[in-house]
């Protein structure tokens, strides 16, 4: 990783990298839903967010989070931050709904 503050941590062309890990995973349904969310939100008929807003959000997660999160975890984090910034959803709504979803999940698992 570069120490240059003028270089984004995502901007890695030419940096040293390890062996290319070629194992592939089948996409989980929730990952496909995140993908779909992005397709729908950027669709010309809706224009809720732009692809560049998604990318900018990913570029602002922080280098550690960028490396630690999976691909679609980065996407949903960035999409959610962008929606919060635009007031499409509020943090209060999000926090309450996430608690509800987690509670429903707990019941189902029990």
């Amino acid at each position: 990783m570069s120490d240059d503050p003028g270089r984004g941590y995502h901007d890695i062309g030419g940096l040293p990298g390890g062996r290319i890990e070629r194992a592939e995973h089948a996409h989980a349904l929730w990952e496909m839903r995140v993908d779909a969310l992005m397709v729908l939100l950027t669709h010309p008929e809706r224009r809720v967010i732009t692809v560049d807003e998604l990318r900018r959000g990913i570029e602002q997660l922080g280098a550690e989070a960028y490396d630690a999160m999976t691909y679609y975890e980065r996407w949903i984090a960035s999409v959610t931050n962008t929606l919060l910034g635009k007031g499409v959803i509020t943090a209060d709504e999000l926090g309450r709904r996430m608690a509800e979803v987690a509670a429903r999940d707990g019941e189902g698992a029990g």
Partner: protein
Amino acid sequence: MATETHDHAHDHRPPPDEDGPLTYYQTMEIAVRELLIEKEVFGADDVRAAIETMDARSPARGAEVVAHAWTDPAFKEALMADGSAACASMGIELGPLRLIAVENTETVHNVIVCTLCSCYPRNLLGIPPDWYKAKAYRARVVREPRAVLREFGTEIPGDVAVRVHDSTADMRYIVVPRRPAGTEGWERERLAALVTRDCMIGVTVPKTP
């Protein structure tokens, strides 16, 4: 440096078990989707339709395009001039995707990357492979393309130029590989079976039958 070496361990975690407890980000996805549906930003049917549409996209569609180009010089010319229009003429609509086809020849081998994120001709080929999105490929292929190709089992002779394409903006790319020797007279469908996703990214070449 630490972030570079840690990368593959995280980017290739297996898919979370759908039956286990939801992770933080899985919970977030469900909550955000439900809120957006309630606010009528889109409907639940739209989500299902978008998933089905993406599922229907696959490297097989790109392989049909390549096989068509191999067998029809006029189509190949159209494909090289305007990839999206040529696909549309085959009934493959790419939406807003601006496709550029780049052709391997006796003197040029092409390979595609997106060093900044994961740009890929998704509307044609579907979702890119994990390694294409991961750091090792993105970091290395622009600087040591021949070594990377060798890791994929592809040796490019010194008298063939390697041309890397970094998809940084609004264009998306597909490599039209060279048609293997020994396939004279083959039907399009049989030819298409030789064209893999990795051939169209440019990290491999079709196997000679």
